């Protein structure tokens, strides 16, 4: 992290953290509602890059802030890992893509089926429920499009991240 001194303020080109989340974390730290040892989880869209200006008196908060934001990133990655680990056990799951919309994680679980399968939906929704309970700080949307003859390049956004494919 490089800090540039201006008259009374320090500026830092932070990693691509969302500005309002940064401010929210900063406020919590200021109010001592969050300690570095707490886990405060927020979703941080990587596509947003902001230059943050921090008042000099708040500069001591930066290590805690980095710690907290890193924890959030770690948790999101962990959630994606758990999603891939769980859903790959279902043979009908062809691939899984993730894209971000606002602060939510949209998970597309592509299933190879030709007809609606209620038992399969039960199984998938049990897994989805478990994931949501494991990561209550995150907001998800899950989709289960039937993809028997579709090729993923035809309908998955180029920016979507593939976290599982067979």
């Amino acid at each position, binding site marked *: 992290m490089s800090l540039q001194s201006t008259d009374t303020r320090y500026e830092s080109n932070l990693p691509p953290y969302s500005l309002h989340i940064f401010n929210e974390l900063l406020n919590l730290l200021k109010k001592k509602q969050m300690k570095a040892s707490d886990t405060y989880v927020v979703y941080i869209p990587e596509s947003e890059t902001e230059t943050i200006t921090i008042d000099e008196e708040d500069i001591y908060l930066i290590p805690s802030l980095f710690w907290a934001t890193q924890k959030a990133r770690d948790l999101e990655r962990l959630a994606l890992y758990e999603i891939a680990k769980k859903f790959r056990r279902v043979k009908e799951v062809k691939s899984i893509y993730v894209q971000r919309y606002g602060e939510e994680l949209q998970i597309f679980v592509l299933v190879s089926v030709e*007809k609606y399968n209620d038992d399969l939906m*039960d199984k998938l929704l049990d897994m989805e429920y478990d994931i949501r309970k494991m990561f209550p700080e995150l907001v998800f949307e899950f989709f*289960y499009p039937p993809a028997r003859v*579709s090729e993923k390049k*035809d*309908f998955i956004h180029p920016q979507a991240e593939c976290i599982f494919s067979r």
Partner: protein
Amino acid sequence: MADYDIHLSQAKHNEEVAKKLVKEPPCHDWGITAAFYAAIHYFECWLFNRAEKHTETSIPVGEDRKFLYTPHAWREKLVETNLSKEAFKSFRKLRDASETARYLSFHRIHPGDKPSWIDKPAPAYFSPEDAIKLVEKVLNSFKFELGIKI
């Protein structure tokens, strides 16, 4: 924004339409969509007497005043955190089936490209029996979990 009574009467209307449509193949796929919109109104009815009151007005916003989540994602979060697992699964099953019935593939996530469809329309993907089960069993289960008299 509708109040309790309006949500309830709209929910009942949508449910009646759903019950009719599922018994009239090949229109049964639209019965699934009507059932999902009945479920939304039953849920909004339930939510009306709680702190959130409406899904749309309780969505968290950022400092830029923009919504952090879509209404669908936030409603599902409310269902998941406030209701039973059975209620959550019923609601999600109706939503997912209705999305599939309407779109089959998710062309909306890649608007620049030609949509890629599975090789059959929704009435062939969902059998009339599937649709009847979604309307009569799954929607009833959701209503039961909400404490709404079936």
